Structures are given as C-alpha cells and as structure tokens.
C-alpha cells in the first residue's frame, strides 16, 4: 500500500524517470555513461550541501548560510595553501572544524535565544561571506600537487564515462546521510523535532543537542562541499556559490521533503539534485535555450511540488476528519 508520506518521493522518482526519458528521446546520447558521470561530478558540491539542508528542513528549520560557508571554505583553503606550507589534508580538517563549529554556534543561538532559524542563519550568511571577503576579494588559484593527485583520481567506465572522486564523495555522503536519518537515534530525534517541537520536548528528547547537532551537520557538510568545490574549480573565490542555499532548498523540496518538517527522505534529495542537473544538461545539449530557463523551470518545479505537498496535507486532514467524525470539528 502506498502511504501518503511516500507519495512525494514516488512523484520525485517518476518525475526523474520521465524527465530522463524525455531528454533521452530528444538526444539519445544523454544515455551515455559520460553524461551520467558528469551529472554526478558537476552537482557534487550542491548534493553534499543539500544533504545537510535536508536534515535542517526535516527538523523544521532552514539554513541560509551554506552558500557563504562554501565560498568561505574555498577562500580559506586557497589562502592557507598559498601563504603557508600546510598539507592540504590538514587544511581540510581545519576547514571542516571551523565550519562545523560555525554551524553549531548558529544552532546554539537558535535554540537558546529561541529565535527563528531564518534570521540567525541570515546573520551567519553575512558573517561567512564577510569573512571570505576579508580573507581575499580576488580569486585565488590553488596549485598544489596534492590537488592534482586528487583531481586525477577517477574510475573510467569502458564506454568513456569518468566517475571522479568528488562524485563518489557525494554518493557516499548521501549513503551516510540516509543511514543517520533512518537508523540512528539522532535521526529519529530530527524527525520528532520537525513533527512538533513542543511534543518532542514533552517526550523528553534532548532538544538542545539535537538542534545544535543538526546545524553543526549542515555547517560541516557545507564545509565538505566547499572542499569539493575547491577541488572542482581549483580556486577559492569569495563571490562564488552565491545563492547555492536556494538551489539546495529547491532540491530538498523537489525531493519530496515537507518544508514544515517531519516528513521526507534523504534519498529524495538525491533525485531532486539529479532532476536539477538534468535540466541544466538538457539546456547544454539543446544549445539554443539560455541558461536562465534553468531558474524558471526550477521555480516551476518548486511550485508544483509545494502545491502537491499542500494537496496531500489537505487530503490527509480531510480523511482524518471523516474517520474521527466530530473530534476535529474546530
């Protein structure tokens, strides 16, 4: 039996399959592993950040800071590797520590000051972007042999597709994200918090550590995403990845996660990312459409999925009303 909570995920899957079939019927070469491999590589940084965003949205919050955190991580790595002789692995660890602590601090502000996540992460967005500007306003190239080694790591499919390291990191992040969301106590707490903060509190869930943990994960994954982005572009630029938070939110919603929190799947976000990547790939293949069509189509999809969610909520409420009779007469 299909439960209504599964329906958004199924619709996402159906959309993806349908979109891919449409693309493939127009351009048969889109079925090649080369395109699939590039789809993973090009969307790796967005996918990693979107995993963190999924957790935040599942808990009923929002994190507007991730685009800035990605840019900050990129600039931080570039500046550190340029000015010191630190090994990139150590710099990666340092960057992850900073971004995780940054996310945790935002989570603490949200929990202890009881302020809306929207405005706290807005301040975080300004702060991270400002910190990136202060480090460097110019694009700093990264020329370290270790970067060349990492960028040279790929598995070549017999038919020509190159599955690169960063695509693999994204897939791994999604797998770990799925496990954490559905197989750990922390994951259960996230769902409970999104289902209703007051109820979760009455059930005795550790609200403080859960909230701080969620935003720490989001910050840390944004940091990882920044590392991947710097591997992808071989540079750190403080004006990069403006608006990635919106793409990530869109991917999460298209992936079938309810924006009010409590319902959704990390796996859905994966297909949300792939759908968005597919639109871009189609526009590249077409060649006559301009890139701004991406924004319009994503906006349209976003709208369609929000309306779908709303319809499902109504349907569930209506059914509950008929089964419980006068209980819901208010």
């Amino acid at each position, binding site marked *: 039996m299909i439960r209504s909570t599964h329906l958004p995920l199924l619709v996402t899957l159906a959309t993806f399959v349908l979109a891919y079939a449409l693309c493939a019927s127009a351009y048969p070469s889109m079925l090649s592993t080369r395109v699939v491999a590039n789809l993973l590589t090009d969307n790796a940084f967005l996918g990693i950040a979107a995993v963190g965003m999924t957790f935040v949205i599942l808990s009923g919050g929002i994190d507007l800071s991730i685009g800035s955190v990605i840019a900050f991580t990129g600039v931080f790595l570039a500046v550190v590797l340029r000015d010191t002789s630190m090994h990139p692995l150590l710099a990666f660890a340092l960057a992850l520590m900073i971004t995780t602590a940054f996310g945790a601090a935002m989570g603490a502000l949200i929990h202890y000051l009881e302020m809306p996540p929207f405005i*706290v992460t807005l301040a975080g967005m300004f702060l991270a972007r*400002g910190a990136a*500007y202060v480090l460097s306003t110019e694009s700093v190239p990264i020329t370290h042999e270790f970067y060349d080694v990492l960028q040279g790591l790929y598995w070549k499919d017999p038919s020509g597709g190159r599955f690169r390291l960063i695509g693999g990191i994204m897939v791994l992040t999604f797998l770990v994200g799925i496990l954490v969301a559905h197989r750990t106590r922390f994951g259960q707490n996230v769902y409970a918090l999104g289902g209703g903060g007051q109820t979760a509190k009455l059930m005795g869930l550790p609200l403080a550590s859960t909230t701080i943990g969620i935003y720490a994960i989001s910050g840390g994954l944004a940091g990882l995403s920044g590392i991947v982005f710097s591997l992808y572009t071989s540079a750190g630029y403080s004006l990069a990845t403006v608006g990635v938070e919106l793409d990530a939110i869109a991917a999460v919603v298209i992936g079938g996660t309810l*924006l009010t929190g409590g319902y959704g799947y990390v796996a859905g976000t994966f297909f949300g990312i792939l759908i968005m990547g597919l639109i871009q790939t189609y526009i590249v293949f077409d060649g006559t459409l301009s890139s701004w069509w991406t*924004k319009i189509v994503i906006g349209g999809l976003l709208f369609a999925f*929000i309306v779908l969610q709303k319809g499902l909520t109504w349907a569930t409420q209506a059914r509950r009303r008929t089964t419980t009779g006068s209980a819901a007469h208010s």
Partner: protein
Amino acid sequence: MIGPKHSTFKRILPQLLILAAALAINLVVFPDFFDIDFRNGRLFGNLIDVLNRAAPVAILCVGMTLVIATRGIDLSVGAVMAIAGATSAAVVVEGHGWVTALLAGLGAGALCGLWNGILVAVLKIQPIVATLVLMVAGRGVAQLITEGKILTFSNEGLIHLGAGVVAGVPTPILVWMALGALVIFVVRRTALGMLIEAIGINERSSRLAGINSRVLLISVYLVSGLCAALAGVIVAADIKGADANNAGLWLELDAILAVVIGGNSLLGGRFSILASLIGALIIQSVNSVILLSGMPPEFNLVIKALLILAILVIQSPRISTLVYMLRASGPQPQPDTAPLPKTQKEEAQ
C-alpha cells in the same frame, strides 16, 4: 493629541539613538559630514547621499513592514525589483513614454505581489516558501524580458525618476518620503493598521472576530510587490539600464534587516513603518561610515552580521524574560511578589 505623539516618539527613540550614534561616527571619520551645498540647482552633501542611497531599501521596507506585521515575510522583493526594472526598460526602449513605463513596471510588481498573496492567503503556503518560488524564478523571468542583456535607455523622463532633481532635492528622496508618509497615513488614520496587527498576532481569532484576513493578506503582499516595483524602476532609472542579474540582489535581506532594526518582531503583530524607515537610514549610515573611513568595503557584511546578532540577542524572548526576572528579583517594595521569580530563577540554574 499629545498622548499618541508622545508614544510614537517613545517607540522610535531607540532607533533614533542608534541613527544618531551612526551619524556621530560618520562625523568622527569625516568632519565635513554634515556640510550641505547648493550647487547647479541641486543639494550636495554626504547627508543627502545617505538619504538618496537609502531610497531602494526604504521603499522596500515600507511593504516589508506590513508583510512582517502579518507574521509573513517576502523574500521575492529583490527579484520583483529586477522584473519591474526590466519591464519598464523594455517598454521605454519600445518607444513609449515614461509614464507608461512606470505603470507597466508597477503593474508587473502588482502581478508578482498578487501571485505571492494568493499562494499565502488562498493556498495557505508558509510565506518563506511561497515567496521563495518567485525569488528563484523571478530573475529568470527578468532575464527573459531583457533577453539576457543589460537593457539601456535614454528616456529623460524615466531617468529623472532615479537620478533627477525636484526643487533641489534628488527625486528618490522625495519618492520614499512621500510613499512612507502615504502608507503611514493610510494604515494609522484608518483601522487597517490595527487589522493587520490582529492578523499577525493570531490569524484564526482575527478571522473569528470578523476580519477578512484573506483579502487583507493578499493586499499586504500586493503592496509589497508594488513597493518592490517602485524601487526596481528607481534603481533601473538611476543606472539608466535594467540589469536582470544584479538589480536588487540581496536587497530583500537589507529590507528585512531594516524592519528588524526598526524593532518590529519577525513573529508579527505591532509594527511601526517610521521605525523601519529609520532602520533603512541606519543601514545606509553604517555603509557610509565604512566608505568614508576608508575601511575596505569587505567589512560591510561582517558589520551587518554583528548588527543582526546584537539585535537578535536584544529581541530574544529568552533574554527579555531573563531581564524581567533580574528586575523582579531585585529590591521590591512588596515582599510577597519577590520569592516567586527567585524560585523560577533557581530552577533555571
């Protein structure tokens, strides 16, 4: 009417003090800050610049204040600015007059506002999400209108709106002041303002009390869209071109910041447009300090972030109860009220 006036003054006093402090820092870093000249039929001076440059955010925050008062938020204003600017530019490039162009821009803004309003009021989608759709798609639509180029124009009338002078004062200053005065007059001399506050405090009970919250919510988003359109046309007129990518970029955040600095709660309810307008001036004064002091403009964002954090801490419900408890646990004339807060405080520890 001494009573209400006195309370208005009391309401905006913190904002006035912050503004005075920001202007004083301006004076420290740039001693000629308050000098105003009259040259070539136009007022010149740093103070005039602050008022002029604050225009887009000031216009946006008028609509944003009303939206936030209903417990909503409008993330799409930046994108709507781009759409309206692009529409006006496209109309004027086709050879129509500036009045038609302005009306077309406002019409586009009204449509966007109506769309947001229907999503929020009829489909009952959370405002952040509902306006996110237009924020994401809006710039694409604007680029569709400009066909991916920066549409430049040389229509005197339209340019006058953004870069012109009326009676020695730059037009944008007059526009935002007039708009602010008009909206304040309308919401405060009628019951509208109170009804909007009622929706923000508790939409359900306001509906039960007979307020047509659906129509009011739609009109509030409509006003926000109109304000955004006006700001967009002014910005486009100022640079004599419509830039779909950068017009109004991140201005929604500045507008929200202005409203928050104005002491309006993001959780809806009581609002003061006057305080928001002063908030917009505060933001511009801070920008001006950074420019005049020769500090790298990169610090702008960091300072804004710290400003938000400071306000968050002050506005936080947790802090205000803490302050209340500290005050209550101090020396009290009545002995029977003192023990209660104390025990609560001990529990908190």
